[in-house]
């Protein structure tokens, strides 16, 4: 903290931190100095010159946005000369400005125009120069329109793109009076602009305005602005929704709050259209004679309650199971798991986390005690070294990536390990491109180099690792054979890159790891993460600010759903179910008999499907999940779902899964309910109702609550979601100190055990959360994959996500802007392979694995190695999971989405 100094502005004494921006300080103290190019998120530009002031001891007029506060500064902010000069400059600005206004954007220049009386043409001195300028509108972008006649050339968009988002797509074309903004080399729609809209948010005039709802939005008619949390990935960006006629018409990033400080990606800013889609489910549907028929809630509830009870009666509690949802709130999920446990009487509850970070969480729980990110998102910018492994961070966590790119601009060392090129490679110090499935060998190689060079941290190992030097020696003896040359032969990564990566990570003062699906979604997923944790523990790069491991979470509330108990082995707060003491506490809080709860750990996602296939699970209640696109080996999943006696799917749209349901219940989107999400850095964030539920749809928790009643397992009456949270806080020690009231303005990071606790931004500062309080090494040997290429299936297929779509794309493909960017499936193939197979770019191909086949289009790209392919899995017309297998990681039961042997043929 810098010390405060005293300055004087127009005779008023003000205390401000030394070095603070003078314009900011003046404005905070009610001196409304005009200024258009300054924005608190950007470096000062000094372009508009409207914030000129006089400072004693300085010559002439000085731009206050470019001055730092110093002790004793005497500032004149307003006098006649300054005001006249400002009016003169505004008059100048207006002479190159088209001041028509359509009420679709906020306009800071317009406000000043009125303030200085320049709305009246007779008060203006300068003739317009607009006509002499050769400028034209660029509306080629899917998301925005650039209107140069409204551009005041303040640099805010350029800096928004560069300094804030790290993308650097925008610049000025031409010079002086003729300059105007361009994206890339001239045409917005052909540039690398990915539509995040940061430039729109920071544009002070109508030069950059978003396209969606441009025709209908009228800022005077916006009824309310609702602050809430983005429904897409796990970053948890804070957004503000503009509501007009009970519809969302705009989404802005909320400035000044974590985790995003106003930044959004294309999905967060434009991906809300699905809420008002005509495809929404609006009434309960019951399948009668193979057709879905609209039904009343009463009819649906009665049918479901009777069927569930009947199956429970006939086959026992464990014949029922539930899929919770990472898209739903903590309150929804808490009520859901409570329902499964008290009404079904089973622990057969799981959700998609089993398909994404289950292995990460399993390894982290065993090794360091918590399955969540150890550091706040801000550390991605400030750490000295960041290891990004199996994580396409720019596309899957675009706002986390902004922190990384800003870090790179400050000189952060970035190591990328990924078999496929991803955009963050552009910012990397080194990129290691291992063959698919060889991560254990590669990480052991890095550890080998570290130990051979003495770059490990013996003091940390002795003090904070279980077994100390002995455990370390055990690891050392296992990894001895993983010399850089040996590892190069297995992974294809050149030895010198392995050595460089080892050096950068181990020798940086601070270092963090960001691990993703590439590591976790493998048969060796848990082992992969064990290797990462070994690396982290022997170098001591954990337990401090800017040091640790963060697995950015894929869905808005994937973290929260597990936190609040949607886990087959654990109650809310990671409390094991197979423990009578725990069961007793929970049963008392829930006011149910001790024996009503099952002590038996439940089945995981893929196991539930297997059990259904085998006829052991008879009824399934799915809330907001779409296993018919997300599960591995979909042909098998399809058979399993068909084999169920009774399937209830609660969702906002028809999905690939609802087809197989007996009853479909219409649920609400995030914009239609109150509650909380937990983001990737354990921040509990508010979700607020912005619009009414669509049709007869209801909030998820209310549906479950009523169903529980009808089944004879009434839950307490909750007047609102805040009361549900209070109950969940009582059974979830890590959130015990949190309530809706406490997180009105800013989220709180768990653990937060008491109501006066500020939350925890960095984990493991004093100890790990294991029984011994120490970190545990798990030496792991490299084993070859069972799934291998052969003459019939000569390629390894990798799968993943892209920026513009989201998971099964039920939401993202119902948003025009996102479809405009991309709306079709493809497969990436190395050019050399394409030549060998005589295939050309854009042609239709068939891809087949030992399990199934699909059709897609070929995209020739050097992003993948020879012999490897990559496909995004969002597109229902080319279901990648028809090809994947359900061989599971033995520890976490995660499925290996990242590696399937396939062949490719022309179609």
């Amino acid at each position: 903290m810098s010390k405060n100094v005293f300055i004087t502005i127009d005779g008023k004494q003000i205390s401000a931190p030394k070095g603070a921006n003078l314009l900011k300080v003046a404005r905070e103290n009610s001196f409304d100095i005009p200024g258009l190019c300054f924005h608190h998120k950007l470096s000062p530009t000094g372009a508009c010159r409207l914030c000129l002031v006089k400072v004693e001891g300085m010559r002439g007029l000085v731009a206050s946005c470019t001055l730092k506060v110093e002790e004793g500064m005497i500032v004149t902010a307003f006098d006649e000369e300054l005001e006249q000069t400002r009016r003169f400059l505004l008059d100048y600005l207006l002479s190159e400005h088209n001041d028509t206004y359509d009420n679709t954007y906020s306009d800071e220049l317009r406000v000043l125009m009125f303030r200085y009386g320049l709305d009246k043409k007779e008060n203006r001195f300068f003739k317009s120069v607009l006509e002499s300028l050769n400028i034209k509108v660029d509306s080629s972008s899917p998301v925005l329109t650039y209107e140069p006649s409204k551009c005041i050339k303040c640099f805010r968009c350029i800096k928004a793109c560069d300094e804030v988002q790290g993308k650097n797509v925008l610049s000025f074309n031409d010079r002086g009076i003729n300059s105007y903004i361009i994206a890339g080399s001239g045409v917005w729609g052909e540039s690398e602009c990915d539509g995040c809209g940061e430039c729109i948010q920071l544009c002070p005039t109508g030069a950059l305005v978003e396209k969606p709802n441009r025709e209908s939005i009228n800022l005077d008619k916006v009824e309310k602005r609702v602050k809430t949390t983005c429904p897409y990935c796990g970053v948890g960006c804070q957004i503000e929704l503009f509501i007009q006629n009970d519809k969302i018409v705009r989404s802005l990033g909320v400035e000044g709050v974590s985790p995003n400080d106003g930044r959004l990606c294309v999905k967060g800013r434009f991906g809300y259209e699905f809420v008002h889609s005509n495809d929404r489910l609006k009434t309960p549907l019951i399948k009668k004679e193979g057709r879905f028929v609209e039904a009343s809630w009463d009819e649906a509830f009665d049918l479901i309650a009777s069927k569930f009870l009947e199956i429970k009666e006939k086959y026992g509690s464990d014949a029922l199971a539930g899929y919770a949802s990472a898209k739903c709130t903590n309150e929804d999920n808490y009520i859901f798991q409570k329902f499964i446990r008290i009404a079904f009487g089973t622990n057969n509850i799981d959700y998609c986390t089993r398909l994404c970070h289950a292995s990460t969480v399993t390894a982290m729980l065993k090794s360091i005690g918590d399955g969540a990110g150890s550091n706040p998102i801000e550390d991605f910018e400030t750490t000295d070294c960041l290891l990004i492994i199996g994580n396409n961070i720019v596309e899957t966590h675009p706002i986390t990536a902004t922190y990384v790119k800003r870090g790179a601009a400050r000189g952060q060392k970035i190591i990328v390990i990924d078999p496929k090129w991803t955009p963050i490679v552009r910012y990397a110090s080194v990129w290691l491109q291992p063959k698919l499935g060889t991560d254990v060998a590669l990480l052991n190689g890095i550890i080998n180099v570290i130990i051979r060079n003495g770059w490990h941290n013996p003091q940390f190992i002795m003090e904070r690792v279980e077994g100390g030097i002995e455990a370390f020696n055990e690891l050392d003896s296992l990894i001895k054979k993983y010399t850089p040359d040996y590892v190069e032969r297995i992974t294809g990564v050149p030895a010198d890159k392995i050595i460089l990566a080892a050096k950068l990570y181990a020798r940086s003062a601070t270092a963090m790891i960001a691990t993703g699906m590439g590591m976790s979604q493998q048969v060796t997923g848990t082992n992969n993460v064990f290797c990462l944790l070994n690396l982290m523990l022997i170098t001591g790069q954990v337990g401090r600010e800017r040091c640790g491991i963060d697995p950015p979470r894929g869905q808005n509330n994937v973290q929260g759903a597990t936190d609040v108990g949607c886990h087959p082995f654990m109650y809310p707060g990671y409390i094991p179910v197979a423990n009578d003491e725990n069961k007793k506490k929970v049963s008392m809080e829930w006011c149910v008999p001790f024996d009503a709860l099952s002590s038996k750990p439940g089945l995981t996602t893929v196991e539930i499907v297997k059990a259904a296939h085998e006829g052991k699970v008879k009824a399934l209640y799915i809330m907001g999940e779409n296993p018919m696109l997300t599960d591995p080996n979909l042909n098998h999943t399809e058979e399993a779902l068909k084999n169920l006696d009774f399937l209830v799917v609660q969702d906002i749209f028809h999905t690939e899964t609802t087809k197989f349901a007996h009853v479909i219940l219409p649920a609400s989107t995030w914009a239609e309910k109150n509650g909380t999400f937990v983001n990737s850095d354990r921040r509990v964030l508010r979700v607020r109702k912005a619009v009414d539920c669509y049709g007869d749809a209801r909030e998820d928790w209310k549906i479950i609550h009523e169903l529980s009643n009808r089944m004879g397992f009434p839950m307490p009456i909750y007047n609102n979601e805040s009361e549900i949270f209070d109950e969940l806080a009582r059974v979830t020690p890590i959130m015990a100190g949190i309530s809706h009231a406490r997180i009105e303005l800013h989220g709180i990071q768990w653990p937060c055990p008491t109501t006066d606790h500020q939350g925890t931004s960095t984990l493991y500062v004093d100890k790990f959360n294991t029984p011994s309080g120490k970190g545990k090494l798990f030496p792991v040997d490299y084993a070859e994959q069972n799934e291998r290429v052969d003459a019939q299936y000569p390629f390894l297929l990798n799968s993943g996500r892209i920026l513009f779509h989201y998971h099964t794309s039920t939401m993202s493909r119902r948003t025009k802007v996102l479809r405009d960017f991309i709306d079709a499936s493809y497969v990436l193939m190395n050019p050399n392979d394409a030549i060998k197979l005589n295939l050309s770019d854009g042609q239709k191909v068939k891809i087949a694995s030992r399990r199934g086949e699909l059709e897609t289009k070929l995209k020739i790209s050097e992003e993948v190695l020879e012999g490897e392919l990559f496909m995004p899995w969002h597109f229902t017309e080319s279901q990648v999971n028809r090809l994947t297998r359900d061989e599971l990681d033995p520890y976490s039961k995660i499925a290996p989405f990242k590696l399937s042997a396939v062949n490719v043929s022309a179609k």
Partner: protein
Amino acid sequence: MLQEKRIALRNSGLINPESIEDYIQSGGYQALAKSLAMESSLVYETIIESGLRGRGGAGFPSGAKGKSTALTCEDCLKYVVCNADEGEPGTFKDRIIMETDPHSLIEGMLIAAWSIKATKGYIYIRGEYYKSIERVKKAIDQAKSKGFLGEDILSSGFDFDIEVKVGAGSYLCGEELTLLESIEGRRGYPRIKPPFPAQRGLWGVPTLINNVETLANFAPIILFGADWYKSLGTEKSHGTKIFTISGDVNKPGYYEVEMGMKLGDLINNFAGGVKGGNEIKAILIGGAAGTFASKKHLELPLDYDALKENGLTLGSGAIIVLNESRSVLDMLRSILSFFKHESCGKCVPCRLGTAHILSVVESLEKSNVGERESIFLNTIKQAEIMAKTSLCPLGQSPILPLKSAWTNFSDEIVKS
């Protein structure tokens, strides 16, 4: 008979510019050896004592700039940058130095570098100066091979290297902070000042920026002493200055003379008088960012202060002579259109101002004679506000030719 006094141009035309041996034979690199034997602070103190002022146009005391850079931090990374982006219309003195005696620049830079303990230097040369670029690069290679550049120079333990950067045609990149942006690989936009380069310059470290001519004076000052240099010129403007004379004169060219030479003497004795037997009408001193003098100023001594007292500037030393047949208004239009063309557009007053004042001056002829005075005075007022509010020297410059043209040629402007 009036004589040139060549210091910066001491070897020009006398030696083979592509031969370091020639330079050494004529006393070259002796000042470097002498400097390296001195306390580094004594070097800038000597420059301060000599009274040398920046010859690029601003006339800031050179030694003071060095001292301030040196004292920003000790033992930290520092740079020396030579501004060789000679873009002021009518100015070609730096080109002559680089083409005819590149080692005088390199030696000057080495001395400047030692005085502030900089380890790296950049020479930013105007892109069209092909020959200068070639000769300076060659000279750098020669100096390296002789051990004047590189590591442990003359066994002193001092390391210094020079890199040439080539400009791409922007006038504004001759502005020192914009020049730094350009070296850093960014677009040529002016930086916010403060911080000054002495505190935070190239890549954020203390940087000493000097013009070619300024640096070319360093070696003689070190070799012959501050007193010697001070003895030249006038009481307040010491030493010599290279003037580049063009326009309506019989012998256009470059002439290095002692400060204080009369303007008329320079034109008549050196430049051969006005061409075509015409009378002199106006003299534009200092280029586009310069001022219009008239016949009545021919007796003025060319030094910083005498010119300033008469509302004129010495600037870069460009002298453009206009005979009776020329129109001052035409010249003014041409200057203002140059400013409009070169304005980067970053700050509002310069972006709009350069366009507005040009259009007013362009339309002057079409307006009523009776209105012209008030129109012109209004334009001056605009240019004054531009000067007061603009971010960099470009927007602060149009007032100079406008105001001096009005002061000295108002009759013509109103009537023509």
